[in-house]
């Protein structure tokens, strides 16, 4: 028996197939993960993402601490704004990817992956040892994601007029608060939507209200195919401590300017740039029928070999798609070894789908 989110009973009542995910009993789907996927691309879906770890960091030294801890630069933030970033080790390897929200000059919120919770907290605390910073994991909250083109109209019935206006006015990667709710215009699907961090004891009630406003519950299965179509990396599959953001299609999240900001991993990344980056993370689309799978071997003729890091089936495109790490010199085509045969695939720059439409 794993850990249960405050929405566990709601999932059972909705007929969820429950699976273990990083020690949590989470819904994989509520009948059909493909239908749930289409619902998010065309309508509105609701996900329980309460397994994710929310960490509040406070104290006078917080900003200088985060400038050193994170590869992206929190000086890009103002209160109410969020930033996607990696947290690196000294070798430039990715400890985790996360979103950091600025609350004030001395208070920030991090949302990190559940699978990396223990090592993330240990690392953050170790880096903060010589400081007076307070690091507090928020185990008293739940997190819901509402995603899809019809989300904006469907949340209208849930919020007061004043709160609704603040929420609808949010720009991407901004957040606001409404009573006890922390609501950000972020997500992991490639569709418009919001992620809501709410007190654990109010989560089931909010879930009920959102479901009665005809948002369909969606499980982790659809979440994975949605994020893959959107070209969004999954920690542990597409990157980990053995690779840097520069080999993971995440160079855009590394702020090398200003040069004097000495974040952890910086020296290793600079050396990697100087020596030449050997690998890149790209998108693959299978030209024939079939499904791409994690760890399938990639052959790039006259260049070298690579590996699929996340492979699946795209419900939107009805094709096998994948993210793969391949030699930097890879062109527009490669071969994928599938059950002993070499099958041609097209190389694209992710995403595959954004806001319901094919992007390559």
């Amino acid at each position: 028996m794993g850990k249960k989110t405050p929405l566990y009973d709601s999932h059972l009542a909705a007929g969820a197939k429950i699976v273990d995910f990083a020690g949590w009993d989470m819904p994989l789907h509520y009948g059909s993960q493909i239908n749930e996927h289409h619902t998010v691309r065309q309508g509105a879906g609701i996900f329980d993402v309460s397994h994710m770890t929310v960490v509040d960091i406070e104290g006078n030294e917080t900003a200088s601490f985060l400038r050193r801890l994170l590869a992206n630069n929190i000086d890009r933030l103002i209160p109410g704004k969020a930033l996607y970033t990696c947290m690196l080790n000294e070798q430039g390897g990715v400890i985790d990817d996360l979103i950091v929200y600025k609350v004030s000059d001395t208070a920030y919120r991090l949302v990190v992956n559940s699978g990396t919770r223990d090592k993330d907290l240990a690392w953050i605390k170790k880096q903060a040892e010589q400081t007076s910073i307070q690091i507090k994991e928020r185990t008293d909250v739940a997190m819901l994601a509402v995603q899809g083109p019809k989300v904006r109209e469907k949340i209208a019935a849930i919020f007061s007029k004043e709160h609704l206006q603040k929420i609808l006015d949010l720009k991407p990667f901004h957040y606001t608060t409404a009573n006890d709710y922390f609501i950000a215009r972020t997500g992991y699907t490639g569709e418009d939507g919001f992620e809501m961090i709410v007190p654990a004891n109010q989560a089931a009630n909010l879930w009920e209200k959102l479901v009665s406003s005809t948002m369909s519950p969606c499980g982790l299965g659809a979440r994975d195919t949605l994020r893959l179509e959107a070209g969004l990396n999954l920690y542990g599959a597409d990157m980990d401590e053995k690779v840097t953001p520069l080999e993971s299609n995440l160079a855009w999240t590394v702020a090398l300017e200003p040069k004097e900001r000495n974040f952890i991993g910086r020296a290793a990344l600079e050396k990697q740039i100087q020596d030449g980056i050997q690998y890149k993370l790209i998108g693959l689309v299978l030209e024939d029928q079939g499904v791409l799978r994690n760890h399938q071997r990639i052959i790039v003729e006259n260049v070298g070999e690579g590996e699929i890091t996340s492979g699946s089936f795209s419900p939107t495109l009805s094709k096998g798609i994948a993210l793969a790490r391949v030699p930097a010199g890879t062109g527009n085509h490669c071969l994928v070894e599938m059950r002993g045969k070499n099958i041609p695939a097209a190389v694209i720059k992710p995403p595959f789908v954004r806001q319901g439409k094919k992007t390559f």
Partner: protein
Amino acid sequence: MNNVPKKLFYSRTHEWIRKDQKDQEEIITVGITDHAQCMLGDLVYIELPEIDSSFEDGQECAVVESVKAAADIYCPIPGEIIEINEELLENPQLINQDPYGKGWLFRVRPFDKNFTKLLTADQYSKQVASEAH
């Protein structure tokens, strides 16, 4: 609990087997069980055997792929493939929707009418229950 119709036979590898008559000849129809489709989740791609090809019992003869995983399908009885369910190639989710009906995979002319290696519904149900622990 998943549906395990009493009138069918089963293999340890989660195929169901039905004895049918075609042109006064005894043939068998093969599919995957409700339990198997439920474990795999939404099916998205199917590879079926060629008509007239022959297989030993337990030999791989088809592949079903879901979003989550690929599974080999084994021919449960030695025989020759006489028909495949071409509708599945267009709509693999028929297996999820109706595993014992519209989701059938292929029909076999058996070389051997000895079905004693196959499981009854009760035996298969017990196997599934023991796998769950």
